[in-house]
């Protein structure tokens, strides 16, 4: 259970210690354990910052953020993060990237066991065996993101934070990885909470049970909706027919309208700022 109460954040303006413009303003949300949530918003709306706050990579100036009742005060042990790029260390092989994280998470396990687990997870995300010995640079973007997901799944954190993980992929790979992610989340032995940041409405609707829409400058919640037609809150992976249902169409159009209004409002106010890490 993650609870965010009245959280605000702004970047410090260098040495002057003046408060920069607010990135996030008075964000409140409760995310129960096991939920798949998408945070939807345009570039620079602070959605990546929100993720960083939950992960404990940055701390909010105002408000409280707790995970299972404990305040987040530094890089959070219960969280694993996948970024759009730069998640894997380019100087070690893909396999070594996994075994390093695994050895650190399970220091008591013998080497062979660690290696077996790493191979298992690489297979689970659909990577061929030979990838174990390849440097991440030798993999395609899609394969790299699969490996990054394998790494966060393998260390067994209950909370996965994904920051536009499929943002740099071509459309086909994007669909394949979306299916893979939903399948792994649904069928995994562990009940994981997933917070997935994206700017793609369709991706958010397809993946998640709940969508939090962030408006921009400053970042604030403009909508918080349950996604309809998720059986038992979950849907079967690979089934994109949900988009044909009239109720779903309406839901999606609704979100798109909200989203478009926010973009237009921001364009009119002329305050396009590119200080986010996501694109």
């Amino acid at each position, binding site marked *: 259970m993650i609870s965010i109460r009245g959280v605000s954040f702004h970047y410090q303006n260098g040495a002057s210690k003046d408060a920069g413009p607010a990135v996030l303003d008075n964000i409140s949300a409760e995310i129960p354990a096991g939920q798949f949530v998408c945070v939807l918003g345009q570039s620079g709306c602070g959605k990546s910052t929100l993720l960083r706050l939950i992960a404990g990579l940055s701390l909010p100036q105002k408000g409280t953020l707790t995970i299972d009742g404990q305040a987040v005060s530094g890089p959070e042990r219960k969280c694993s993060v996948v970024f759009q790029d*730069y998640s894997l260390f380019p100087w070690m092989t893909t396999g070594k990237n996994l075994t390093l994280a695994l050895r650190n998470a399970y220091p008591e396990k013998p080497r062979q066991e660690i290696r077996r687990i790493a191979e298992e997870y690489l297979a689970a995300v659909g990577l061929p065996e030979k990838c174990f010995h390849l440097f991440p640079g030798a993999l395609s973007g899609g394969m790299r993101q699969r490996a990054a997901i394998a790494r966060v799944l393998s260390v067994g954190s209950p909370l996965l934070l994904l920051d536009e993980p499929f943002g740099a992929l071509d459309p086909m790979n994007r669909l394949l990885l979306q299916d893979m992610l939903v399948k792994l989340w649904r069928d995994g032995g562990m009940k994981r909470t997933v917070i997935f940041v994206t700017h793609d409405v369709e991706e958010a609707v397809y993946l998640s049970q709940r969508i939090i829409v962030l408006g921009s400058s400053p970042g604030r919640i403009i909508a918080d909706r349950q996604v309809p037609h998720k059986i038992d809150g979950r849907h079967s992976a690979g089934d994109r027919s949900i988009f044909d249902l009239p109720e779903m169409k309406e839901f999606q159009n609704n979100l798109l309208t909200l989203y478009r209004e926010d973009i237009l409002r921001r364009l009119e106010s002329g305050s396009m700022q590119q200080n986010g890490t996501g694109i």
Partner: protein
Amino acid sequence: MLPHVLPHILFAFLLATLLYPAEGHLLPFRTLVLSVFIESVFIIRHRWGANKTASRDVASVLFTFLFLWELLSDRLKCIDTMLFPAPERIFTLFISELPDMLSGLGGSLILLGSGYLSALATAVPFGLLVGWHKRLFNAVHPFAKVIGPIPPIVYIPYTIALLPSFRSASIFVIFAGAFFPLFVNTVNGVFSIPPALLDAARMLHLKKRVFFFYVLLPGALPGIFTGASLALLLSFLLMTAAELIGSTSGIGWYIKNFSDFADYERVIVGILFISIIITLLTWLTERLEKFLLRYREVNND
């Protein structure tokens, strides 16, 4: 078509000059062997090498240089052969002096190695720490900025007075000279690690030791290598300078000694020898860099 045969034409000119009979003139055997060697390496590289234009250009420059050298010194005798001896003279002397120079080299390399390696062993860990801890960086940065640009050569007379022996003084000077390029570039290497990668590392909650050896060190390695090759050149320079000033052996002393006797043939031979050694050391560093940073060559984005 001309550019393709130009090196061969130049080679032919060189051969003709070398073989042209003259009174009291012996066949310049070693220069001939060297020229033929260059031509064969060129032919091999031109056929199978990757960069054909470059190998043609390099061969052309080499042949022109040897041709002019032979022509001006030994044939037309229009330059002072005491300061510019004929190529054959230099190559003959190089071979006969090789044992002497090699025996001096051992001592020189021990000096170089002790100074350089101790700089490597201190500057890199210290640079990693300073690059990672912001507060430490802010504290150290002003001092590094002031001390770093002092040319290490100025320490030589002082350290010779300060330290008990010539050896310890030159080792210290080499150390001081190699330290700063290594340190500064290690710090820059840490700064050049993509922040998202460091965030990813922080979220893995790695133990301190693991983080240093598996994230910070390899992440800063491109910077460390920039510093290492700079430091290598600088410490080689300082080693020779120190030997010129206070040694009684070693390759720097060799040049100084014969220059005192106005034996410029041996001075040139010594310079040639030094250039071969430093090229070899640089080449080894580059091979090591290529191997350790091989992951950068596999990018298929």
